[in-house]
């Protein structure tokens, strides 16, 4: 199983925004990530699919500095980062949205406080205008500004989490299953919101999901992961035309098409 993306799939258009080489994350003696390499071009939307335990979330967490990587290298916009520790500049460039909107917002802070915190950390001064603009951008408006997260629905919470990520005007957004805790109709709204934001700000997405449908809708290229390794990297259109080589990718594709009797 090779970790090098196949040449026809890695035809990255612009300069490289995110480059991962031979990354290894080890928990005790277990290799959660086993020599993973990938490149994401600037402005690209890149997907990672796999089952639980495949290492897809660990990869995002290692990039964001939430998990320490032991070997390998990470480059973001030409800057090198080590296994642990990220500076402020990194978080101006890279922000993350998590799966569970119930767990990722502070339960005792109002939306205003939640959105204020990143702005204060990074020394912004026009906080008031930025907060109201961020709320407008995610389609919530001023009426939600002084609510607590328990007064919001799951979809509204995820909008706040997206607003919090976008408020620092990052270049790269790491999305860890951003819609898998949501109803199908709310999922569609959040995916549309993310696409609009990407278009308006020319963002780079790295999106993790177990749902091939979601990834093929949102991303131009995708990597299939299994047991901490990259199985293959293909263009999203290749799924439709069945132009992939790994048997595991086919299994995932069959599974995503639903139950068949017989």
């Amino acid at each position: 199983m090779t970790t090098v993306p196949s040449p026809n799939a890695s035809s990255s258009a612009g300069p490289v925004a995110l480059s991962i080489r031979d990354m290894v994350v080890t928990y005790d003696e277990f290799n959660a990530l086993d020599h993973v390499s990938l490149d994401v071009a600037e402005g690209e939307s890149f997907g990672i699919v796999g089952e639980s335990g495949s290492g897809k979330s660990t990869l995002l967490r290692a990039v964001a500095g939430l998990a320490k990587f032991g070997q390998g290298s990470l480059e973001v916009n030409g800057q090198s980062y080590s296994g642990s520790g990220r500076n402020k500049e990194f978080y101006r460039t890279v922000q993350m949205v998590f799966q569970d909107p119930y767990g990722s917002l502070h339960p005792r802070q109002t939306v205003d406080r939640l959105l204020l915190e990143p702005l204060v950390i990074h020394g912004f001064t026009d906080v008031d205008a930025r907060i109201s603009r961020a709320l407008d951008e995610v389609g919530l408006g001023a009426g939600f500004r002084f609510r607590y997260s328990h007064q919001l629905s799951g979809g509204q919470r995820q909008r706040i989490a997206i607003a919090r990520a976008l408020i620092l005007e990052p270049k790269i957004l790491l999305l860890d299953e951003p819609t898998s805790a949501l109803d199908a109709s709310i999922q569609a709204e959040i995916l549309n919101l993310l696409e609009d934001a990407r278009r308006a700000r020319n963002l780079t997405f790295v999106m993790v999901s177990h749902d091939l449908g979601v990834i093929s809708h949102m991303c131009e290229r995708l990597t299939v992961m299994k047991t901490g390794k990259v199985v293959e990297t293909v263009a999203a259109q290749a799924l439709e035309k069945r132009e992939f080589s790994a048997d595991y990718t086919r299994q995932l594709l069959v599974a995503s098409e639903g139950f068949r009797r017989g």
Partner: protein
Amino acid sequence: MSATSNQPLLTVDDLRVTFPTRTGEVQAVRGVSFTLGRERLGIVGESGSGKSQTGRAIMGLTPSQAKITAKTLALGNRDLLSISASECRHLRGKQVAMILQDPKYSLNPVMRIGRQIIETLKTHEKVSNAEAKARTLAMLEAVQIRDPERVFSLYPHEVSGGMGQRVMIAMMLICGPELLIADEPTSALDVTVQLEVLDILDKLVADRGMGLIFISHDLRLVSSFCDRVLVMYAGRVVEELPSADLSQAQHPYTRGLLNCLPTIGSDRHPLPVLDRKPEWRL
């Protein structure tokens, strides 16, 4: 496939489940009616649509502060609303069984798997220890667990999610219930494992001629698994249709649910979203 006997297995007429809250009463289920034969019925809806409360009301698992009313809620010819708690316990597990979403929470974490299944069996049938064990092992084999002896003596945390859900199915089917209610039985599992578990469930339900109520948020999955689908919105059934006719769904909510899913090969940007009309709630 669905043999229609004269007497329906389950009759639900005008079922209502009401919860008291600080701001007044909330009706989670508002007049649901259907009959079920020996067939596979799907109930689909989003969170808060009342689909799970419908299943729980049939099972007698509604929280005590909630109020259930119905013109009829009968299993065969037994009225489920008027039976005592002990009669209900007798039915539950023996004639009606329920599979819940996540085996991590629905299996007893401090009891070995074999003992949990035997406990179910012994609650309802007078059997010797040896026979109980033999039947449990046979049941574990029926849910395609390769090494039943080993799994028999494991704790739930020692098995994977897919294995746990098979154990759950084994436990629910060991007393041979007539009706099985499966509430999101595969939503907590990985996609590839989902299909295996569904396959096992499908074969067992068909072989034993049970009635099945399959509750899920996933309209496509339900329609590929069931004979008939009820679509619920805000506590009511907004549409009922045979699974084969799903593409001809009339109600805008059903159509919206079908359309809003991103699928491989359909290039729709932006995705259509549901425009929830207030009149759907009426």
